[in-house]
């Protein structure tokens, strides 16, 4: 076979192969994957997931470690490394709904979905719930609330108990000492703050316990 014919044959084989690869790639493109279905078979593959932030931790180096939960009931870790986080135009908050595209990896026996760049994350912010709508039945439920500090009490152990009020409703916010020492901003009566965390019953009263300084933001100073 001469070189011209070889070139034509190679080109034909290349195009046919490419078409077959393209058709196969179309069959396996990532669709929205239920978090509960993520298992070892997904490791190394790109997936798209969507879930609510039910926990997050900020590393001193700027990394953000999210836990996302969706309707399937599964929870998965999503590490947003500092480089990716710095490119994100907006902050990610507790209970926000986050859509993530990324590679599934196994770290410490747990599955993680790792976004490679800021464009792999889409954040839908959730609005704070109304304080007047909260009751004892909401114990053990994660919430994001916003209100004005109307009372600030320092407890014997050095902890802080705030009373938030908004639209006629009110809620106690318990801030443990270690959170105060962990860089909590100065809080005064009259400050409007946004707080997130899990509701709990303490002495029969509904209160929100702050898990970390990053779970409280001062929206408006007094």
């Amino acid at each position: 076979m001469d070189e011209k014919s070889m070139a034509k044959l190679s080109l034909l084989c290349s195009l046919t192969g490419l078409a077959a690869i393209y058709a196969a790639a179309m069959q396996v493109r990532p669709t929205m994957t239920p978090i509960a279905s993520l298992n070892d078979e997904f490791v190394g593959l790109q997936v798209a997931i969507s879930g609510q932030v039910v926990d997050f931790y900020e590393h001193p180096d700027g990394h953000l470690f999210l836990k996302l939960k969706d309707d399937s009931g599964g929870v998965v870790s999503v590490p947003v490394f500092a480089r990716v986080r710095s490119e994100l135009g907006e902050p990610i908050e507790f209970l926000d709904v986050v859509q993530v595209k990324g590679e599934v990896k196994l770290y410490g026996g747990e599955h993680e979905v790792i976004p490679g760049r800021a464009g792999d994350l889409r954040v839908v912010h959730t609005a704070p719930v109304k304080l007047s709508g909260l009751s004892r039945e909401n114990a053990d439920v994660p919430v994001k609330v916003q209100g004005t500090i109307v009372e600030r009490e320092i407890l014997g152990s050095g902890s802080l108990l705030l009373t938030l009020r908004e639209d006629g409703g009110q809620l106690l916010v318990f801030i443990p000492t270690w959170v105060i020492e962990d860089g909590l901003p100065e809080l005064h009566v009259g400050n409007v703050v946004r707080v997130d965390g899990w509701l709990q019953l303490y002495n029969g009263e509904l209160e929100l316990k702050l898990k970390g300084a990053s779970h409280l933001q001062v929206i408006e100073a007094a």
Partner: protein
Amino acid sequence: MLEALACTLLGVGLGTFTGLIPGVHVNNLAPLLVGAAAVSGLPPMNLVAVIVAMMMTHTFISYIPATFLGAPEAGTELSVLPAHRMLLEGRGYEVIRLTAFGCLGALVLSAALALPLSLVFAPAYGFIQPQMHWLLLAVIVVMIALERSRSGILWATTIFLLSGLLGLFTLDTNLVKGDVALMPLLSGLFGVSVLLLSAVHKSNLPKQNVDNPEPLELRANVKALCAGTGAGVLTGIIPGIGPSQGTVLAQLATRSSGMRDFLVGVSGVNTAKALFSFVALYAIARPRSGAAVAVDQLVDKVGLNELLFLIVVALVAGGIAAVLHLKLGKLAARHIGGLPYREICLVVIGGMVAMTLWYAGMMGLLILATATAVGVLPAVTKVKRTHCMGVIMVPCILYFAGMKDAVLSAFGL
């Protein structure tokens, strides 16, 4: 001290193993060593010594299968063709000497430059990264334009685009897991295609000239060595730029076209990149290779002391690896001459097919076959095989330009 030396020797042994066996890479073993750290109770720095020594040794020894078997991997793929051509001329041992010179020279040079350059790494990184897609695009335009004839330019563009699409459809989709697609891609573009054509034309390998190789002159190769080291440093800090793109940059910078210069350059890029992937841990706190990720996991923070330790280990391992490379290469060259070449080619091709099936399944086989078809084109159309690097360069350019998702979406992927 003695423990560190013993670990360095262990790393040299492991690197020799990964280097000699096509398809086995340091990245396959490094995570196992990180896992071993947790249960062994060994000081982390000793395991770091194993990983660094393994990585550096691998960069030397991997040129032996690339030269004598035509079995490429990431970093050695561009060396396969000139190395293979020299092997067919009975100059296989000369390739070993040239790559030993390139690897060792670049290691010494980059070790000397590591500290001063680490000071300017962070600002340089910030400046280069946003412009990277333009830099790569310029390299491609020049690469294609160098073909000169109209048909050459047309074929070069076609091959580049075919390779680019192949890379995009396989590396950025869920066809195979992670970076597994790289193996059938590189084997097809730079291995099987070369071996197939060689098997058609040649029945026996000539006796290799082992005893009177052409002398190596430092002065004649110093330009290629410096360019290779420079490109290796660049590729060591910028993510997504492999040794092959670095080699293309180095070639353009030095305007070198000879096979000897090319081999010194490409081996220099590979070794300098390997060392600087560790230096990047100190300078910009980012790992730039699988082995560097493993080191990053073992050490809390790579400070000046840790960096100096890494460099010393790399130099000791590199020195031993160079001697091993020459000895093993000589052994291979002495015994490969006169062997039935066509059969060897077919056995190696069979091995690559088996490895592909093992790692990437039937889909890998389709990728290997398509990559082989594309890889045959440069030889039959008489253009440079470098254009096949579109397989990595196109996804890289789209990544740096922030257009990868948009392009994949346009293809419906």
